[in-house]
């Protein structure tokens, strides 16, 4: 047996341990070492990512709360705001897909109502290996069922998301969950332990031995050994969460509390220390008062347990009784376990004995910050410069279209979202299946649009462009429904940042995202970093995921992607210069993942989006759908399938027909309008200096794309396209 010192077992490095001794002026005891280990883990301290995250623009006229709190807050007028954040639960989901995903939803929902907001929608972004693999199907089925099981039970609609498949995620799936809440400005609460003498109250579930060191675990690579170390699995209790939501909102709205924070990674330790850290106070807790689920738990286990569905409240002493009554009404335990002190010390007692005593600031702000070195990996130039237009043009392009429509990356995700209750709360005006979901805000004429996006192949081949594209695509999806992007949350899923090639991917992606945010004027208000997504040394494709929120001033003026009526004119907004490089077509049909990622002119992107939004608002267009994976042909097919109507398009092809049809491109939106409005639509585009072209018109039961010469490139019945597109994913299960 090797005898690593305790600090090493807990994931601290020798330098970090030395630094702790320095800060304390002595060696920490076992419990204290544990406290530092979890708070200084990547998950809590962002020690590898902090300097890079500084690149994000985080301010704007609507921003009420940027990064640093449990979630970001953006103003939507009328004294209301939206609160949102996205978070990863990748490692737990790899080990136990159902519970891993379920507790991921539970965690992010707590981050939202802890701010005083009522959660009104969830989204998710999922990555799995190939569905041909039985283990992957198990993971995918379990994750989707877990999200459904938890989200449906707590009565928050899951209104959108994305799922894609690539072998790099075979052992390391990604499960990123986003939650959005609605709050009146006056009800906003922050995670602060303010006011010396105030009480610290623990509410919700009892504390058990589950998930101890879950966050250090999230900060490690997966290995055979981690499969063995399974007690880190937690089981979610959505019923408890539902009660917590109602009870917490009741005490917040009744103005009974000073501060509130959920217990997430590193449980009681991180939530209490962070609350004291933010308020600049000290804290004294007595672990013997913590209600337990199991007998014989040590103070260490109580402090580090990651039992789900718990919250920490700070309140004035005279509020204890009324608060306890409210929790009792909901059948919940609420126990005072400590109080706020003025000495800046984090003190843990077990009854009379002091078992840990360290400065709060050492825990929360003392972690080292690593300025890792990024180095461009060898594959980058090689793949980028690999010529890809030497592949043969397929004979039957119609067949290729069907093949793409059946590709799980492009096929309908209905198999997924029909398992989610996406309608509860009766706000879902545009359901999953469109470019973005649209929710009404009851009592106003406003709407909120939501989407998550990310393209990891782009990010692998060119993390800078890929990062930019993720932001641009999310914003474009919002613009397609008519919403103005007002804020962004991000989940940065990467491999081991200690490897220079990975760190380079991370840095480049963040730079690209930041640039797009700056030009498109969308502030980043919250986010999450998930490193160490590797299995046996192999990293996943770099996967920054963007969750974005948009605002529709008048929900009556909104748009969906489906073609509406025969005779409607079809136009393409944006400069159309499709690329074979990095396309889904190239990967699927020619098995090549290389080439140049489509270029992105952010100024043009901004004009295209603004143009699309104003067309929607003026009621001039009847449908809008952007070109993404699968290119123009797939975008048109999706419009046809969703509208259950065909179209006839006549195009002038420049270059290869397969590149024209299936090559990918940024900043392009397929729109339709009635013939009468065509001139006005064209004028609007010209006025905004947005290139456009007339493609054809809606009608018939087939999608026909033909050249000016009359030769048909694509001629497919809508019914057949729908069948392959709709059934594909379900057929794997």
């Amino acid at each position: 047996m090797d005898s690593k010192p305790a600090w090493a077992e807990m994931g601290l490095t020798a330098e970090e341990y030395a630094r702790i001794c320095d800060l304390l002026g002595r060696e920490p005891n076992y419990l204290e070492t544990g406290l530092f280990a979890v708070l200084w883990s990547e998950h809590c301290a962002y020690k590898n990512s902090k300097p890079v995250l500084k690149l994000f623009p985080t301010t704007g006229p609507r921003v009420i709360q940027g990064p640093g709190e449990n979630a970001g807050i953006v103003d939507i007028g009328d004294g209301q705001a939206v609160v949102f954040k996205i978070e990863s639960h990748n490692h737990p989901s790899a080990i136990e897909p159902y519970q891993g995903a379920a507790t991921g939803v539970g965690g992010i929902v707590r981050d939202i109502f802890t701010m005083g907001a009522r959660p009104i929608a969830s989204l998710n972004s999922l990555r799995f290996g190939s569905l041909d693999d039985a283990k992957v199907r198990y993971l995918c089925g379990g994750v989707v069922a877990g999200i459904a099981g938890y989200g449906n039970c707590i009565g928050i609609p899951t209104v959108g998301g994305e799922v894609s498949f690539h072998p790099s995620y075979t052992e390391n799936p990604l499960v990123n969950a986003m939650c959005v809440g609605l709050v009146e400005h006056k009800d906003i609460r922050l995670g602060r332990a303010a006011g010396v003498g105030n009480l610290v109250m623990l509410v919700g579930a009892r504390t058990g031995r589950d998930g101890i060191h879950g966050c250090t675990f999230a900060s490690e690579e997966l290995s055979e050994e981690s499969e063995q170390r399974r007690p880190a699995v937690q089981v979610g209790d959505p019923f408890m969460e539902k009660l917590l939501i109602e009870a917490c909102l009741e005490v917040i709205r009744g103005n009974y509390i000073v501060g509130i924070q959920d217990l997430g990674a590193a449980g009681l330790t991180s939530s209490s220390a962070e609350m004291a850290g933010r308020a600049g106070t000290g804290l004294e807790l007595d672990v013997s008062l913590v209600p337990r689920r199991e007998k014989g738990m040590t103070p260490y286990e109580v402090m580090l347990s990651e039992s789900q569905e718990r919250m920490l409240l700070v309140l004035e002493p005279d509020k204890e009784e009324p608060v306890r009554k409210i929790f009792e009404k909901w059948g919940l335990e609420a126990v005072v376990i400590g109080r706020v002190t003025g000495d800046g010390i984090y003190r843990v007692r077990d009854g009379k004995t002091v078992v840990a005593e360290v400065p709060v600031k050492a825990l929360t702000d003392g972690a080292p910050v690593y300025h890792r070195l990024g180095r461009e990996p060898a594959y980058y130039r090689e793949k980028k410069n690999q010529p890809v237009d030497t592949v043969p043009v397929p004979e039957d392009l119609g067949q290729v279209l069907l093949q793409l429509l059946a590709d799980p990356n492009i096929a309908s995700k209905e198999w997924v979202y029909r398992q989610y209750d996406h309608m509860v709360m009766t706000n879902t005006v545009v359901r999953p299946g469109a470019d973005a979901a649209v929710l009404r805000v009851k009592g106003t004429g406003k709407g909120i649009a939501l989407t998550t996006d990310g393209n990891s192949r782009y990010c692998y081949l060119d993390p800078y462009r890929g990062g930019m594209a993720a932001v641009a695509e999310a914003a474009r999806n919002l613009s397609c429904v008519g919403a103005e992007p007002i804020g962004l949350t991000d989940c940065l899923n990467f491999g081991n940042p200690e490897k220079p090639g990975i760190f380079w991917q991370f840095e480049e992606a963040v730079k690209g995202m930041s640039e797009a945010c700056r030009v498109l004027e969308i502030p980043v208000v919250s986010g999450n970093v998930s490193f160490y997504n590797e299995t046996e040394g192999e990293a996943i494709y770099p996967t920054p995921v963007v969750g974005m929120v948009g605002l529709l001033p008048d929900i009556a003026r909104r748009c969906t992607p489906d073609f509406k009526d025969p005779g409607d004119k079809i136009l393409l907004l944006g400069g159309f210069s499709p690329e074979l490089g990095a396309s889904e077509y190239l990967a699927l049909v020619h098995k090549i993942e290389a080439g140049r990622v489509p270029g992105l002119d952010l100024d043009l992107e901004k004009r295209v989006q603004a143009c699309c939004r104003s067309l929607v608002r003026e009621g001039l267009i009847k449908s809008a759908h952007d070109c993404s994976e699968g290119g123009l042909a797939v975008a048109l097919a999706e419009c046809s399938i969703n509208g259950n109507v065909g179209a006839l398009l006549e195009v002038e092809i420049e270059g290869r027909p397969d590149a024209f049809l299936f090559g990918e491109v940024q900043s392009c939106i397929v729109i339709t309008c009635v013939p009468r409005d065509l001139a006005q639509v064209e004028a609007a585009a010209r006025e905004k200096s947005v290139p456009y072209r007339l493609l054809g018109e809606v009608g018939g039961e087939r999608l026909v794309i033909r050249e000016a010469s009359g030769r048909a490139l694509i001629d497919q019945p809508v019914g057949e396209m729908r069948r392959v597109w709709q059934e594909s994913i379900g057929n794997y299960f």
Partner: protein
Amino acid sequence: MKFGVVVFPGSNCDMDCYHVIDQVLGHPVEYIWHREQGLAGYDCVILPGGFSYGDYLRTGAIARFAPLMDAVSAFAARGGLVLGICNGFQILLEAGLLPGAMRRNDSLQFRCHDVYLRVENANTPFTNRYRPGQVIRMPIAHGEGNYYADPETLAELNREHRIIFRYCTGDGDVAPEANPNGSLENIAGICNKDGNVLGLMPHPERCSEEILGYDDGKALFMSVLHWWGLKREREVVARG
């Protein structure tokens, strides 16, 4: 006419039902906490959807013991209108106010999407604003809507026209492919002998406003208002 929406721990469509009565119909409505004992003053009580007590043992199994449920039984016995939607339907089954039981969906998955329903009996307090045989659309959202009743019960339900809604195709065909959960005889909703207690799996409150796509569910609530109006008239006439 006054409505009450029951709130069990874990109910999650309570606010949606409240919204429809209050904002769409413009009628008085109140939440009723599951620990209350009486229902005096109410004319129609709605048991909303959700996951009462997490639905952890069986759907509706724990909620049926809520103190309020005795009052609901008495209210129903007096002829009060009781509408159980989704989890509310499951609770009514467990409480014995409606016959039969729910099993898990045959797909073993939760299902959330629109379905078509055929109105099998338009002569009830809940369906008089529909035409007999009318095909309507409503969303479902459940994991356990696979209705079962023994053959005698089923025969009785049929004989007494107590099967109110069946899942059907867009053309009104009660076909197996239109059945989203494996329910016997495509049953989506049934009522009690007196017709004043209705349970259904689909969610009328989710389709009572045009902005949500369509408003086929509104007629169900309008039926209740209409029926109550007629009842009042009869009472006035009877009293002379």
